[in-house]
């Protein structure tokens, strides 16, 4: 069913590309996050065409499900960021996209002009359970066990790191924070947390007005 495959490919490609361009072009970061969701789901579709079912599912669940949600939370917390119009680095606005385009052109030349024969084919005939969770799981736990374990440790470290970085305590990491900044930011932290707690009142429903101004 080659036709279906082509249509599906182009649909996914357009979705991915559109989402990507929207991510970099939209002013409001919240909208950029939403554009990313579109991009990710389109990619999941492309993965399906490539017979990577487990990965498509993982993409939707992990990426579009968890990671994007994280982004949404932080975007909501942080709020809108004003990006000034003027550019402090001379020429960055023009050279940046130019270089990216140059990169794309080079990669395309490399891909299109290559002598690698296999690129023009569709690939060998693959077994039916190619890319199935069973196959992936078997590979993970047999051949790539160390990678599996290492990835787990990495996740653990990342989680601990995030808690350490974002947690409230006196003067972590920043020397510029210093003693002068401490009582202020500690008070500010406590103030914020308390106001957050205030928002989620003991009766379980977020109150409209916080007891003190955040």
């Amino acid at each position: 069913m080659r036709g279906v495959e082509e249509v599906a490919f182009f649909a996914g490609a357009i979705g991915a590309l559109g989402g990507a361009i929207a991510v970099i072009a939209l002013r409001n970061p919240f909208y950029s996050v939403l554009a990313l969701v579109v991009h990710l789901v389109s990619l999941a579709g492309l993965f399906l065409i490539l017979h990577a079912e487990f990965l498509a599912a993982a993409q939707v669940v992990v990426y579009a499900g968890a990671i994007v949600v994280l982004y949404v939370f932080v975007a909501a917390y942080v709020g809108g960021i004003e990006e000034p119009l003027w550019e402090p680095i001379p020429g960055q606005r023009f050279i940046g996209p130019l270089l990216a385009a140059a990169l794309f052109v080079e990669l395309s030349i490399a891909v299109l002009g290559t002598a690698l024969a296999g690129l023009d084919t569709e690939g060998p005939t693959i077994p039916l359970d190619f890319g199935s969770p069973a196959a992936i799981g078997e590979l993970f736990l047999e051949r790539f066990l160390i990678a599996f374990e290492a990835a787990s440790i990495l996740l653990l470290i990342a989680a601990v790191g995030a808690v350490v970085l974002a947690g409230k305590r006196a003067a972590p990491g920043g020397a510029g924070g210093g003693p002068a900044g401490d009582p202020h930011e500690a008070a500010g932290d406590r103030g914020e947390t308390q106001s957050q707690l205030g928002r989620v009142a003991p009766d379980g429903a977020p109150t409209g007005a916080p007891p003190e101004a955040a």
Partner: protein
Amino acid sequence: MDLTWYLVLSALLFATGAAGVLIRRSPLVILLCLELMLNAGNLALLAFARANGDEDGQIFALVVMVVAACEVVVGLGLIVAMYRRRLPLNVDEMRSLRG
């Protein structure tokens, strides 16, 4: 679809992400563009896995996803920490490491 299409698409997505990193100033959006680049890489990996009939590429892509997740977690933690300390969320303002 033969492999070339996927690779060109992957290159295009990668270049888009790179352009985004270079022109956006909000750290949050820069992280998003990093996600774009990582996903482009994943796409290329999976395309090659399909072309070789080998699932190792999919394993690789899965691990890349894990790494991307960790990186996002830490990056967002940084942004939250920056916000907490009332630092301007603008990478151009963070330039005390100048030579």
